């Protein structure tokens, strides 16, 4: 088709003034006005929440339900230590092979059936069977799950395995009633013990839950909770402003600052337990095989500046894997501080000097050039990488940034091409410091990035897994943290905080340490 002159006879663009934008709006308004059916109204007993989280499945083993429908045996307290939930207490036998969980006797499932050791056994057995496909559970040495009496559950393992307890606080081990399943072992409707009862699920869209009046703990104040999946942050913001959402989750620091200025909204910030942004160093390749260079890099990074400028002052700086408010943090460590002069001195000591005055240090005719890799699924990482490039440039280190998908970086790492890898990892993902420690073993997913698994570290890690007493374990992980700080196979940069915002008439909301939205105490004015 020849549409030469299609726009002939149109007024010149230069004549189009901004008022014409209003004309478009006017036409839009006419369209919308003519089609408008009604006006939606909010109710005070319904809580609406929007987050980018998408309920991909009703099965907690497959995907976290993120809404308090079902509960696991254990939980974590404000220090990140394990605490009771459906189990009142638990103990481990001398040999570390038998775990006994004393269950609450006042708990009912949403279908009215009592929560007993038999029900917990059936649910956990399914979890262990199913999660084999999904996670590290397949490598757990679980031997059997037994119900000793009505409210006593016994789990035996083939070898002592302390990280098991942490795993029992994860959503994947939520206890579901038998009526949740169809005959193919699939969850058709999650029937749990939580303060909210599952009502409906529209895939990719929303999940609705209603109050469970027989809840064993504090009963929820809201009658109904609607979770909506809204991937676009701007849209979530608009929903909050328009009153279509009472709470919005997973906000960027920039948006939280903007909303904080408005008295109509309240911002909630909570450090996510264990998540830490850090650099992994390849310790068997020049120049990072020299611990002095690694330490110099750690000292040359101005963490404060990164947190204040890039992260809008929301996140806190990190020098160790666990933030100081967590139980597992070694509070006696002397943390590296920002000291570019000392960093330069260390580099000089390692005989990296700038002989040709081009701003980049050399040694034996080789430039101090380092390949830094990172990925985009956490959007702040590439800009942090840029900041690192700038800051390390000031002490004479040239950084080349490559941004790839994580799995592509790992492939590069296998070929030894990755010097530094900037990552954001949850070091307490399984609610146990073993998640963090296991990075420093040859079985680690990151081994190719670090090539760091000295024998003494590996045996400490093994000891940590086999020691059941929490205080003794703490000593082991304190030792490990000291050792890692000394060897510097990683440099910790910042922690990560989850941010939510509510309308100011919403009270009692709590964003937990493990990123859960606690809605049971929420009420609206």
């Amino acid at each position: 088709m020849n549409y030469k002159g299609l726009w002939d006879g149109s007024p010149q663009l230069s004549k189009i003034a901004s008022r014409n934008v209003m004309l478009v709006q006017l036409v839009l308004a006419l369209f919308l006005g003519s089609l408008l059916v009604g006006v939606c109204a909010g109710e005070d007993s319904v809580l609406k929440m929007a987050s980018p989280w998408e309920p991909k499945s009703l099965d907690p083993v497959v995907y976290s339900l993120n809404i308090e429908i079902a509960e696991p045996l254990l939980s974590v307290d404000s220090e990140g230590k394990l605490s009771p939930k459906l189990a009142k207490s638990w103990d481990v036998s001398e040999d570390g092979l038998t775990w006994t969980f004393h269950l609450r006797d006042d708990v009912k499932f949403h279908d009215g059936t009592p929560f007993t050791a038999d029900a917990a056994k059936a649910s956990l057995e399914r979890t262990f069977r199913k999660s084999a496909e999904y996670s590290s559970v397949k490598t757990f040495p679980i031997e059997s799950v037994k119900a000793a009496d009505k409210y006593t559950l016994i789990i035996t393992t083939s070898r002592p395995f302390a990280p098991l307890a942490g795993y029992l606080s994860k959503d994947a081990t939520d206890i579901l009633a038998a009526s949740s399943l169809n005959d193919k072992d699939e969850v058709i409707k999650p029937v749990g013990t939580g303060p909210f009862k599952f009502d409906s699920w529209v895939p990719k869209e929303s999940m609705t839950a209603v109050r469970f009046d027989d809840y064993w703990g504090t009963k929820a104040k809201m009658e109904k909770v609607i979770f909506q999946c809204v991937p676009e942050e701007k849209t979530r913001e608009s929903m909050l402003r328009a009153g279509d959402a009472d709470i919005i989750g997973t906000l960027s620091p920039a948006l939280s600052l903007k909303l904080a200025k408005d008295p109509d909204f309240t911002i909630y910030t909570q450090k996510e337990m264990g998540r830490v942004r850090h650099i992994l160093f390849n310790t068997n390749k020049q120049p990072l095989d020299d611990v002095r260079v690694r330490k110099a890099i750690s000292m040359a990074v101005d963490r404060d500046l990164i947190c204040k400028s890039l992260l809008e002052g929301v996140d806190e700086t990190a020098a160790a894997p666990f933030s100081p408010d967590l139980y597992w943090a070694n509070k006696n460590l002397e943390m590296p501080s920002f000291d570019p002069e000392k960093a330069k001195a260390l580099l000089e000591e390692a005989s990296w000097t700038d002989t040709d005055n081009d701003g980049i240090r050399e040694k034996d005719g080789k430039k101090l050039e380092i390949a830094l890799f990172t990925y985009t699924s956490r959007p702040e990482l590439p800009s942090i990488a840029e900041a690192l490039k700038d800051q390390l440039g000031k002490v004479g280190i040239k950084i080349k940034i490559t941004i790839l998908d994580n799995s592509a970086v790992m492939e590069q790492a296998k070929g030894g091409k990755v010097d530094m890898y900037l990552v954001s990892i949850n070091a307490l993902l399984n609610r146990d410091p073993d998640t963090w420690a296991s990075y420093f073993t040859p079985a680690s997913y990151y081994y190719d990035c670090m090539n760091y698994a000295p024998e003494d570290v590996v045996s400490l890690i093994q000891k940590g897994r086999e020691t059941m007493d929490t205080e003794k374990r703490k000593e082991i992980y304190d030792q490990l943290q000291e050792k890692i700080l000394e060897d510097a196979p990683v440099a910790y940069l910042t922690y990560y905080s989850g941010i939510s915002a509510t309308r100011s008439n919403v009270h009692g909301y709590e964003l937990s340490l493990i990123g859960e939205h606690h809605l049971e105490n929420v009420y609206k004015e």
Partner: protein
Amino acid sequence: MWMLITRRILAAILTISFLSLFVFSFLYLVPGDPAERILQARMNGELPSSRETVGVLKHDMGLDVPSYVLYLKWTEGVLHGDLGYSYITRRPAATILYESLQATAELVFVSISIVVIFGLSLGMLAAWKEDSRIDNLLSYLAILGVSIPSYVIAFVSILVFAVGLHILPVAGRSGMQSMLMPAVSLSIGGLAMLMRMTRYDMLAEMRQDYVLAAKAKGLSEARIFIKHIFRNSLPPLITYIGLELGGLFSGAVIIENVFAWPGIGRLLVDSVQSGDVPMVQACVLLIGVIFICINIIVDILYTYIDPRIKPEGIL
């Protein structure tokens, strides 16, 4: 006619096979291990912690075979009417696809209706009142409509109608009201273009000799305008509408994300990001089939509206 349809469908099957092969190889040729991507997606974006888990997953999902074997297995499944299972959620791909298709179909249907109804009628109005004030105004609007990206329209309308006036919900899929903003934002560009093309085609037709002949015969102007001029300018417009219908499916990707509309565009983007090969394949297959169906329908309409066009002539 049937000959045309058969040939078209054969060509379509070939096209879709190439397309699926292309998409499949694309997902496997990008650097990195698909199993790692899947694991990451299953763990809600968390990176895996041990190599063992990656190996276990690979084996459990049958990914530890060469990729061409995977492709052949997938093709075999499709031929048996089985689109496979999502790697991430383990739900049947066909079910997930069906849920998303409903949402997108609704959105696209309303959008294309807006495009056709308003595009054609306003275009006719502009041609009828050539060079009048209304024609000039519509020209302004058409330029704006074509040049403003749909997501800008989307966000501006959210600000005005949801945040400002509180008369429409910001996002989600809950009845007619929630459909308005996404459908309108999605259709403005196509509407403006169609309006302009209608005006152009009709003006070109108006200058044909048969119009003069019809006038000489004493037919009323309105009758000539609708029955002759409009009908004769339809074929190229129908082609455009067909193309636009396809375009709406792709434009829906952005709009669905902005308005949290649970459609196929969002599904496709999600699946590509998480390396969910069976879902990507299923989406591509479906979109391919939709495009081809639209084309066949356009061709048939063509011959119906303008009998001078022979089916053979099209291929």
